[in-house]
């Protein structure tokens, strides 16, 4: 069965064709990053405009790349939240219209749940129960997945998403936007020896807070600049990144232990961070935990994961009503 997935919740316009929820036939992603770069972050109204301009040609490209005729699509899946309302509305409305035109069911997908399914696409042997850590510019979620469609959100960020903190630190270090890759590169040349925060005020919980850490970097940079001293950018990047990864690592492996599972899956753009991958791999080996992470194009926002997740949702609960509304703050339940 062929599923068409549509994803427009942030700044990637993406459409994919997936077979039976596990085989990617096409995965077309148009990143708007160049349109937002000079503003230092995603501009919601601009993102919505770009989605509408791009979406139809991308649907066409996804079908062409998959070698699939429109009438072969049997299910249309689209993200309905969480995300930026303007973009969500474009993808959701288009997907509903396609389902009407093709007379096939439509299913709304939770974007955060979608990220988990990126791992099922990449690793056919993967089965729940598992712990999934999704970290990106938009989300930081620690989730226990007992079964397909059965989740417990263990922890979330109380302030900034991990990727957002990377962006802000990159900005103050003059590294540009998006911040993840340049901070990662610079950190490799530095020593992680600067103590930025004294204690983990959320220790013992599964929640995250990156705002204090980010502010510590910003304040330190400003203090040094005022005194006319050189800013040790590489050491700062390394220290910041070490702290972020340590927090993520501690929470994730504690969850694995508490929930007595043997599988840990990573997802989201930050999962591409080299230190994160290295340290998670080491820790997983040390503890005998099976670690999974998707390739980069499935880590970041894409529609293949939405199509795959939509397929499992549809199998479990059937189609969504055509009057399904967007849910910018949708939670995973």
């Amino acid at each position, binding site marked *: 069965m062929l599923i068409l997935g549509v994803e427009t919740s942030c700044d990637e316009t993406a459409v994919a064709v997936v077979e039976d929820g596990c085989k990617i036939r096409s995965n077309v992603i148009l990143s708007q990053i160049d349109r937002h770069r*000079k*503003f*230092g*972050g995603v*501009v919601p*109204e*601009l993102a*919505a*405009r770009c989605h*509408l*301009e791009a*979406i*139809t*040609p991308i*649907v*066409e490209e996804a079908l062409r790349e998959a070698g699939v005729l*429109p009438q072969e699509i049997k299910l249309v899946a689209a993200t309905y939240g969480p995300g930026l*309302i*303007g973009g969500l*509305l*474009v*993808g*959701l*409305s*288009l*997907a*509903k*219209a*396609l389902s*009407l*035109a*093709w*007379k096939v069911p439509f299913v709304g997908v939770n974007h955060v749940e979608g990220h988990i399914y990126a791992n099922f696409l990449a690793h056919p042997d993967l089965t729940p129960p598992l712990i999934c850590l999704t970290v990106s510019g938009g989300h930081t979620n620690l989730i226990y997945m007992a079964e397909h469609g059965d989740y417990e959100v263990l922890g979330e960020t109380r302030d900034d998403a991990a990727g957002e903190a990377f962006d802000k630190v990159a900005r103050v270090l003059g590294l540009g936007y998006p911040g993840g890759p340049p901070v990662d590169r610079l950190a490799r040349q530095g020593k992680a020896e600067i103590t930025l925060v004294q204690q983990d005020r959320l220790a013992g919980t599964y929640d995250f807070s990156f705002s204090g850490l980010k502010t510590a970097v910003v304040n330190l940079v400003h203090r040094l600049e005022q005194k006319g001293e050189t800013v040790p950018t590489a050491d700062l990047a390394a220290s910041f990144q070490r702290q972020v990864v340590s927090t993520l690592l501690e929470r994730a492996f504690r969850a694995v232990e508490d929930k007595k599972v043997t599988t840990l899956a990573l997802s989201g753009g930050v999962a591409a961070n080299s230190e994160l991958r290295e340290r998670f791999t080491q820790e997983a080996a040390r503890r005998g935990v099976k670690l999974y992470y998707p390739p980069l194009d499935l880590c970041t926002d894409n529609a293949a994961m939405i199509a795959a997740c939509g397929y499992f949702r549809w199998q479990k609960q059937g189609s969504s*009503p*055509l*009057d*399904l*509304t*967007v849910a910018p703050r949708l939670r995973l339940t």
Partner: protein
Amino acid sequence: MRVLGIDTATRTGALALLDGAQVIWAEQALIRPGGSEKLPALLAEAMEAAAVSPEELELIAVGVGPGSYTGVRVGLAIAKGLAFGLKVPLVGVSTLQALAANIKTDTLVCPLVKSRKGEVYAGLYQWQGAQLVELAPPAIWGQEELASKLKAQGERIVFLGEELDEYYTYLAHYLKEQARFGQGKENLVDAAAVARLGLAEWEKNKENQLYTVLPLYLRRTEAEIRWAERGCPG
């Protein structure tokens, strides 16, 4: 030719199905705030009630605004999805022109759609025989600026629009007997007019606008405006 008309630029979402000149059905529903995404369900219900199957549609006409950015995008996304999915052509129509088509009069017609910051989207239209001619294209106006410009023209004008109440007092006071105002349904966008204008456009140019039609924003995003003014974000 079976034409589907859609308009979501104002608070009232409008859908209509025409067979040539004949209106098969027309729907108007309050869709905002928050609810324009319910339009596909409304469309599905209406088509089922009229016993019309999606593949019987031959042309999609959609209002491109000006109006709510988000609203117009929802209408366009639905229209693009239908046109692509059904392999039928898509034509964009000015929402202001569709509003103007609501009344047949010899005088000037000035449809108004609320914009932001106290401003208004307006255009100027006039029937010349069977043709509704656009004398001034949609633009953003302050109401004082618009009223003084129209006063200088010295002709009678009929104002139309869903949120006419907001401008009524000022326009009536300033333009006195020069101004007339639309009544009741005349002030709401009728998707049948969108469909009719779309069909006329299609017959004239036979140009499928699936990949080219865009909302009539008339304004860049706030972020872009600030960037142009200051050369930096924020």
